[in-house]
């Protein structure tokens, strides 16, 4: 009797979960496990036959592929800048917006707007700004530092990519930080003000510890998204000139669907990307959760 009841319960559970599970298994789980398998082969997409090569692909990616090494380094640099700048700017904007009374909704609408747009569209619009508007502005105003090869020179296009990414990403985190700031009790801040704390001290010792959980989320989201950055770089520089501004995702994309079609090798690179993201986000969550409890 009990067994039949349990069986029925399992049956109903499966009936409800099956449609989702079916799509999920086909289009996410299967490719994920397939990717692990193919990363151990020399499959090239064209030839139906392929051989098991063990960890050769991983070894090649990590030791014999300067373009991949460069992409990893470029991505790490980008992630570092993004984690610091995106969160700092988002908190700044959130605090400033929360301090306004009448114009609050207006500024929030504007700062969030880029988030609604695809970074492909945003990237193309910025490309117009970098290649046409800024040189024009430099000539007219004499501000010669604006007239750079923002797209063509990799030392400047790193910052161009950064600017576009921040433009598109700050608004999203701002919404999260605004929600967190609204949870900070104003009586606490008023008490601090009565005790003679300045604006900075109130922020540092009252507001910041109170929004620490949001900071954990904000940094987690930034890490997670910036390791996978693709659209902004694709739209702005396409990884060029050469492979100078190639990020990991673009390097994988080009390896698989560009000229070489080395699917097995590209899969190994994709697994390396996955492992990097996994390890770094787990470490980040562990570290920050621990501090959250203390704070």
């Amino acid at each position, binding site marked *: 009797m009990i067994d039949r009841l349990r069986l029925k319960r399992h049956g109903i559970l499966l009936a*409800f979960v099956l*449609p989702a599970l079916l*799509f999920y298994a086909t289009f996410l789980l299967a490719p*994920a496990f*397939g990717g692990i398998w193919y990363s151990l082969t020399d499959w090239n997409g064209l030839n139906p036959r392929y051989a098991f090569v063990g960890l050769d692909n991983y070894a090649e990616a990590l030791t014999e592929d300067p373009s991949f090494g460069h992409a990893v380094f470029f991505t790490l640099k980008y992630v570092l800048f993004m984690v610091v700048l995106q969160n700092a700017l988002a908190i700044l904007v959130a605090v400033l917006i929360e301090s306004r009374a009448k114009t609050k909704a207006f500024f929030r609408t504007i700062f969030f707007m880029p988030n*609604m747009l695809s970074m492909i569209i945003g990237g193309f*619009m910025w490309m117009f700004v970098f290649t046409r508007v800024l040189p*024009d502005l430099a000539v007219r105003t004499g501000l010669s530092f604006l007239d750079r090869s923002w797209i063509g020179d990799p030392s400047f296009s790193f910052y161009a990519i950064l600017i576009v990414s921040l433009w598109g990403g700050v608004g999203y985190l701002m919404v999260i930080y605004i929600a967190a700031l609204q949870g900070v009790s104003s009586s606490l801040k008023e008490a601090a003000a009565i005790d003679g704390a300045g604006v900075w001290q109130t922020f540092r010792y009252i507001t910041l510890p109170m929004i620490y959980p949001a900071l954990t989320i904000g940094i987690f989201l930034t890490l997670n998204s910036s390791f996978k950055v693709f659209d902004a770089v694709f739209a702005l520089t396409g990884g060029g000139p050469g492979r100078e501004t190639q990020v990991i995702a673009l390097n994988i994309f080009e390896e698989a669907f560009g000229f070489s079609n080395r699917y097995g090798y590209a899969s190994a690179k*994709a697994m390396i990307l996955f492992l990097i993201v996994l390890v770094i986000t787990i470490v980040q969550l562990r570290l920050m959760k621990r501090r959250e409890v203390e704070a």
Partner: protein
Amino acid sequence: MSAHRYERREAGRGASRGIGTPRAGKSRGSSSLPGLLALLTLIVGAAFTLLPVYMGVLNSVKTEGEMLNGILSWPRHFAWGNYADAYRKIDFLRSLGNTAAVTAVGLAGIVLFAAMGGYKLSRTPGKLSSFLFGLFVLSMLIPFHSIMITLVRIAKNLTVQGSTVGLGLIYIGLGVSMAIFLYHGFVKSIPRDLDEAAVIDGCGEFRLFFSVILPLLLPVTATVAILNALWMWNDFLLPLLMLTDSSSYTLLLSTNMLFGQYGNNDWSAILASLVLALLPVVVLYLLLQKYILNGIADGAIKG
């Protein structure tokens, strides 16, 4: 619900400012130095945020010649022809329809299947249930780039590659796990007595779900729908891999094609098509922004 709370809180703040304790006046009003500085910073930031869009819209109604004369200046005569040109080049209506079809198929599947799964997983105790839930949650850290190569092969084998409906089906598979996670959390707030009462009244499992539970899930459905619609509408890489024929191109793919064809030169047509491509999203944003902002905050904090 939460939109209401938001408004009330803001109204409350406005009122307390109206009463105007000296302290509040000092830190909030724009007459003081910090207040002025804050306002100025926000204005600079807002100008920076609007810059590329403003430049794009402004120059989309100029001819190439007038652009050379002055990129920043107001157009002397509006070259609306750019828009007719762009409309034709990106096949606007068809691209828009394709994008809408992909998003609609994906959204319908994600909302329906994730609501069913999330509800039942949340209600059923036991090992099987927590194993399945864990299986869904597990994948949320896998980068898309780690699955895309094999996904292309699978899509080819299942012959869902190349069609907008097929692309929508793939999005269901990629989107359900996050949606199940959100539904799973929300269902906990719905009292179980409701299920039991309905069952006692002789309501079957599926009828219970569709006529009692699903309507109650509306707040989280709104969040799920907004997050996923935005993602699918603005996604570029998956359509790039899946849609091979230009007749099934989405707005982003059609716009991207313009760059391939014209090598960055024909900015007046490109800018006009960029404006056309972002128009639907901006209009929707201005209409629904309260729900969108709340959905984003909810989704991020619970996800």
